[in-house]
């Protein structure tokens, strides 16, 4: 093995320029993949987190059927008690109770329809980023305060400023008219067009009184420590509601339909693109491997004449091409990791990205941070290694059929 | 008049203790129409001297004049021009362009010179006939024998009507009959066209055809013999 390795390494440097160019091609594609895949997955993480953290949360406990038909009478009882029990277990980052209904908001001569949400001011910040996104005024003060915060576009359409009053008109749970007047204490800007245009939040108790809900609510929203722990989260929640058949657990994939499929499409198309790119690189370096065999046919003839087995020569050549591939991969992984590290520290920004993200209701996607998982770093290099090994070994297989005299005659 | 003049030409390869002095203070004058043969053992400086005169290599010091021009002072492009118009080359082997036919090889230099198609064709036909290759014009080098290849090379060197033809071991890859034929051809061209020949060799046959024989040893001319 020692001598073979030595020979292979020496051979590699017989044609320095070609070796460097080939290693460079491999390194180039490796850099691209090592930097690309973590960024791609990082972007998905940010997309998922941004869409979930702004309001829907990682999972919700609802009445069965509420997700499809979010009607005010599809409420759940003892929601606050259940939420308290969940908070006691300490394994969730946030648990909050909400009630939701549709209402017409009016100010002066303006009226707009909006989604009005009753929230627990104390806990809502753990499951939604809206309390932290108040651009003017302040967040709701207590669970029974008579006040409202509204989205920035809605405020503009209603010509409302902090301190103005807004009239709310909707239908209560019992069919009665829900009407109230609240002062606007805060205006939020989430970066999601839908939320900023159609959302208003009031304290839970105030909601329950206005909409004749009694003590009931519609959802318990839960945010886990990480969105990756979705299966464990669903298991734990299903455990917690065992014995109650009036509620179900709904995961984020159903709460935000399309997000997961959208990511899936993007992943598939992204991988197809990278796959073809690898194919271009592979064909681009195939010539190196082809020539390194062809130009040495005479030398192989000599080795055969000296009594070396064809298998041994083929093995030598395979070792040589593997060393070359590994050289390229090492350089590529090194530089690629540096790029990923830089993106990890600085964030990857692209001009126009934030504007676009807003249009797709993906708040906060101004900078992409890579997802630092070992598999993301290795998946690209592994594919490149397999692809280059296949093309490198095709010409080598010819060596096995080589006849010494014939080979030595080749120029 | 002189076609080639060398004054105190030195050529050193490498530096310091490893330096090899290929030529040491060589002075030489070659008259127009001469047929000069350089002989000497391997490493005596024959090829180096030939390459210097052909502008393929530069002297470390000294002056070289070809056709009244100081070629040691010229740029690469100027040297290319001198070779194109004033000097023809014949090498020992493999000196034809493999992808071109015999005729195309001969016309190559004329094409570089920008000679019109008609004239080119006329000249290449004549020259190939003169070197005895009539009927083989459209063969590629690999389809010709060694002697025939060398004749194509001679035709090519000749066709641009150079004042000087340099030949490096022209017979090295030929059998004795072919070598004799080639030397007769070169002598005949020297007689008829007054072209100056400078030939390096260690082939006795070639030396016997020379009008002037130079013997080199360790980069110095040790003998200068006029023959016939």
């Amino acid at each position, binding site marked *: 093995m020692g001598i073979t390795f030595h020979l292979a390494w020496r051979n590699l440097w017989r044609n320095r320029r070609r070796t460097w160019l080939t290693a460079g091609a491999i390194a180039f594609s490796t850099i691209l993949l090592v930097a690309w895949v973590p960024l791609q997955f990082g972007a998905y993480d940010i997309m998922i987190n941004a869409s979930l953290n702004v309001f829907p949360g990682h999972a919700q406990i609802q009445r069965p059927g509420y997700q499809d038909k979010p009607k005010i009478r599809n409420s759940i009882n003892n929601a606050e008690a259940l939420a308290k029990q969940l908070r006691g277990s300490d394994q969730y980052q946030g648990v909050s109770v909400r009630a939701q209904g549709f209402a017409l908001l009016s100010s002066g001569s303006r009226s707009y329809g909006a989604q009005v949400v009753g929230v627990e001011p104390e806990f809502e910040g753990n499951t939604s980023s809206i309390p932290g996104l108040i651009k003017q005024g302040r967040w709701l003060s207590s669970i029974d305060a008579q006040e409202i915060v509204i989205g920035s576009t809605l405020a503009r359409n209603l010509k409302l400023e902090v301190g103005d009053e807004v009239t709310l008109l909707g239908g209560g749970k019992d069919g009665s008219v829900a009407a109230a007047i609240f002062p606007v204490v805060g205006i939020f800007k989430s970066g999601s067009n839908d939320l900023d245009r159609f959302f208003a939040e009031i304290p839970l108790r105030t909601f329950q009184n206005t909409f004749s809900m009694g003590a009931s609510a519609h959802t318990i929203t839960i945010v886990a420590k990480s969105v990756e722990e979705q299966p464990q989260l669903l298991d734990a929640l299903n455990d917690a509601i065992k014995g109650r058949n009036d509620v179900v657990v709904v995961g984020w994939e159903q709460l935000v339909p399309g997000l997961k499929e959208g990511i899936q499409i993007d992943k598939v198309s992204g991988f197809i693109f990278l796959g073809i790119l690898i194919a271009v690189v592979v064909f681009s370096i195939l010539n190196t491997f082809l020539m390194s065999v062809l130009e040495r046919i005479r030398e192989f003839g000599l080795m055969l004449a000296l009594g070396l087995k064809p298998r041994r020569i083929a093995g030598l050549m395979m070792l040589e091409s593997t060393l070359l591939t590994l050289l390229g991969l090492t350089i590529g992984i090194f530089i690629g990791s540096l790029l990923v590290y830089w993106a990890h520290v600085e964030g990857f920004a692209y001009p126009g990205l934030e504007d676009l993200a807003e249009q797709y209701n993906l708040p906060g996607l101004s900078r992409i941070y890579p997802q630092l998982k070992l598999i993301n770093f290795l998946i690209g290099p592994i594919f490149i290694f397999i692809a280059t090994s296949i093309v490198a070994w095709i010409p080598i297989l010819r060596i096995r059929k080589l006849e010494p005299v014939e080979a030595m005659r080749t120029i | 008049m002189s076609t080639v003049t060398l004054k105190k030409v030195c050529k050193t390869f490498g530096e310091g203790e490893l330096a090899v002095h290929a030529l040491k203070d060589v002075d030489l004058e070659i008259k127009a129409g001469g047929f000069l043969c350089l002989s000497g053992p391997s490493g005596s400086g024959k090829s180096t001297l030939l390459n210097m005169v052909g502008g393929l290599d530069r002297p470390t010091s000294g002056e070289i004049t070809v056709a009244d021009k100081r070629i040691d002072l010229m740029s690469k492009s100027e040297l290319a021009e001198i070779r194109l*118009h004033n000097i023809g080359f014949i090498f020992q082997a493999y000196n034809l362009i493999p992808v*071109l036919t015999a005729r195309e090889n001969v016309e190559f230099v004329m094409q570089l010179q920008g000679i019109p198609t008609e004239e080119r064709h006329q000249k290449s036909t004549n020259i190939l006939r003169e070197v005895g290759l009539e009927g083989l014009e459209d063969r590629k080098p690999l389809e010709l024998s060694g002697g025939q290849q060398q004749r194509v090379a001679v035709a090519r060197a000749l066709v641009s009507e150079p004042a000087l033809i340099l030949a490096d071991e022209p017979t090295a890859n030929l059998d004795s009959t072919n070598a004799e034929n080639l030397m007769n051809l070169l002598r005949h061209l020297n007689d008829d066209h007054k072209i100056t020949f400078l030939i390096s060799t260690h082939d006795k046959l070639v030396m016997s055809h020379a009008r002037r024989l130079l013997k080199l040893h360790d980069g110095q001319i040790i003998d200068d013999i006029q023959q016939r």
Partner: protein
Amino acid sequence: MDPNIAHPQAGTGGGDAYHMMIKTLPLLSALGWRNLWRRPKRTFVILFAITLGVWFMIVSAGMMIGIIEQQVRDMIFNLTGHAQVHHPDYRDDPAIEHSMLLPSKKLQAVLNSAEVKQWSSRVRLPAVVMSERESRGVMLVGIEPLREQGLSFIGEPVVAGRALQSIDDNGIVIGRRMAEKLETQIGKRIVVMAQDKHGEVADRGFRIVGLYQAELEATETGYIFTGLSTAQKLLGMSEISEISLITENRDEIDSLVARLSAAEPQLATQSWTELEPLMVTALEVYDNFMIIWYLIIFAAMAFGLINTMLMSVFERTREIGLFQALGMRPSFIVIQVMIETLMLLLIGITLGNLAGWFTIDVIFADGIDLTQFARGLDAFQMSSIMTFQLEARDIVTINIMVIALGLLASLYPAAKAARYIPIEAITRT
């Protein structure tokens, strides 16, 4: 043949060298072409790499342009049009007091000019729609049904029931998914509430006569349609909210917008690029991204191209030395290698373009059906049939870029070849 005749000498001027270069081009081309086929296998491999790369550039460009074009068309068809005329404050605050008068004679004259394919007036104001069970906030749009044909999606046939027939039609057409949300259906009545001209809340019951379908859920749940006059009657207004129009060419709309503005200077006339600035940003982002993407693919090809040319030049060291000995200038050797590269590039590009054309116009002529991913596509505002589209501009960009950068890449092996010292080149075996 007289050896004493002086021959034209070296370095007689740049013009001469240029002249010579032109004269020797056929020779250099013949040499390049024959050299390519000395090692056919190697040539085929690099040709395949170039072809694959160019094909990939063209197909990915076709895909991206197809997606973007679809989005732009959907956006234009989604009640935007190529240009709109409004009360100057309507865009910022789409309220009833920001309505505009019916188009004046002057404005009509411009709107009826030949380059406008279709135009229509609309009432478009926020409202609340209520079924027996649910309420939603929507935009109530009063339309001139016949004039919407070819202008927006509501001019297309509906999926259930009937379309609106006249400006007096007092039926209402809502989105398919809106009907689901409201738990209602064709034939049922819904109540529409909106603020009228006097600031009072006006309401009235409508019978649902048709359901329309749109690519995006947001569209289907965002708009309800009735006749223009019916909407005006409900809101006690004689004005309209907007005029929308489309022309033959959306990219050459500036002069029309200028003339419309001139006809009614007190109104705001805006082209689609001003109405949807985010779409324009998206177009720019995609354009930049595509250039980067082309460069990445090119770089992948370039390594192979440089390496192949280097090998080819290295193999011919002796020959190149011979060229130099025969009096070929170094610059001609550079040109020879570049011609050889150019031939490779031209063949590869031709094949790549053909393959790209075949993929886009033959294999995927009808687009790719992605209906099974519809929900995911909805999140990216994409249509469920992905169609490819190519624009001459992008094909030209790709081809010119590959040739220019390819030749640039060949300079390295070419310079290497030109720097061979003839003597070393010849003596090397």
